[in-house]
């Protein structure tokens, strides 16, 4: 485990360049979750490296793109604007390392998982998404939602998530024009949660997580204990 700032800086440099793999990439994710958010020095270094990474792009030199590209983009603008409320920016990769090692997950319907191989693939995809500069993480109750522009999938993850009261479960809902649709229910495994949920931001407005009686109908949430991904500043 890395704990000196020289080594951390080395990993942050590799992380920004997207050149880390294996144990180094995992350690960088851990640092981005556990250390960097609370360390001014490392946050400053990370932001400086990110700006540097952007500026290095200029050195490649300009090349005129094909003339067809702008018309193609213009034609897609109408369908492309998300209706979702803006989400608050937080440190990328936060939370990803916290769920590594999770072996099983309790889900149903179209939340993907339960299979260890699928789960490992899904976590790798989440880690890749989290490393994008435009990735966003927002709190949804005791969990966090990870998403990125242009992606029709989001992740819900958490560590230290409390068990709901006996006889209750967590349920996930996707909201379209104010109407929630049941996606699935789950319980934390040793406090850990990792879910991958299809989500089209051009159609769907929000994600809710609620605590519901296990025998409650799934046509709509019946509990007032409910969190929204839009409940952020």
């Amino acid at each position, binding site marked *: 485990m890395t704990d000196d700032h020289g080594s951390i800086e080395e990993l942050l440099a590799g992380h920004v360049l997207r050149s880390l793999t294996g144990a180094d990439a995992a350690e960088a994710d851990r640092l981005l979750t556990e250390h960097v958010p609370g360390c001014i020095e490392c946050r400053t270094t990370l932001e400086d490296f990110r700006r540097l990474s952007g500026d290095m792009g200029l050195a*490649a030199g300009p090349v*005129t793109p094909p003339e067809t590209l*702008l018309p193609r983009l213009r034609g897609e603008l109408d369908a492309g604007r998300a209706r979702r409320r803006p989400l608050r920016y937080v440190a990328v990769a936060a939370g990803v390392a916290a769920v590594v090692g999770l072996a099983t997950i309790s889900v149903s319907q179209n939340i993907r998982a339960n299979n260890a191989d699928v789960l490992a693939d899904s976590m790798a995809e989440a880690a890749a998404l989290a490393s994008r500069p435009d990735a966003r993480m927002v709190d949804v109750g005791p969990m966090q939602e990870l998403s990125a522009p242009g992606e029709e999938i989001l992740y819900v993850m958490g560590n230290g998530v409390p068990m709901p009261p006996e006889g209750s479960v967590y349920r996930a809902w996707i909201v379209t024009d104010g109407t929630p649709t049941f996606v699935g229910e789950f319980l934390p495994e040793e406090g850990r949660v990792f879910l991958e949920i299809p989500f089209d931001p*051009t159609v769907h407005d929000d994600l809710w997580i609620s605590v519901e009686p296990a025998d409650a109908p799934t046509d709509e949430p019946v509990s007032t204990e409910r969190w929204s991904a839009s409940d952020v500043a």
Partner: protein
Amino acid sequence: MRDGDRDDLELHRSLAAGDRGAFDALYLRYSSSAYGLAYRITGQQVLAQDVVHDAFMALWRAPEAYDPARGAFRTFFLSLVHHRAVDTVRREERIRARQDRASNLEPVTVEDPAEGVTDAADLAERRIEVRAALDTLPPEQRQVLELAYYGGRTQVQIAEEIDIPIGTVKTRTLAAMRKLRRVLARSEAPEGA
């Protein structure tokens, strides 16, 4: 803050409000730099075009992803292009590796470099500064940095490719980043800093 950065902030605000004219203006301002970067990393026009397309669509779909407090729009957007280009290269490598194993195909050759173009004066000025900063790096540091950034290589691949220990790759990378940071920080500061 540079004049171009202020203009970008205004354009970004307008784009966030759904202004297509602002989208066009940002496209005209950054498409050549973005395409040049994507082209250098992917080495193929089709892939570079897809990278730039996806980056601009991501900007349009979720403009709030850019936070002015974290720096200039320029660095955010080109960093986004870089990430997508590197991801594209890695995906193509995996596909090609599978195809090569299946049919012993020759590696895909990189297309000829395209002709450079002139872009906005402030971007050209910053480009000169970045290139000058890169020129200050010792050759062994610059080699490692460019293989990672423009070549999309992992540190493990770089170590194998130039036959040095991975620890040396890490050391040289950090030394290069530190030096560039020092040199370029003088003319770049985040909004509100």
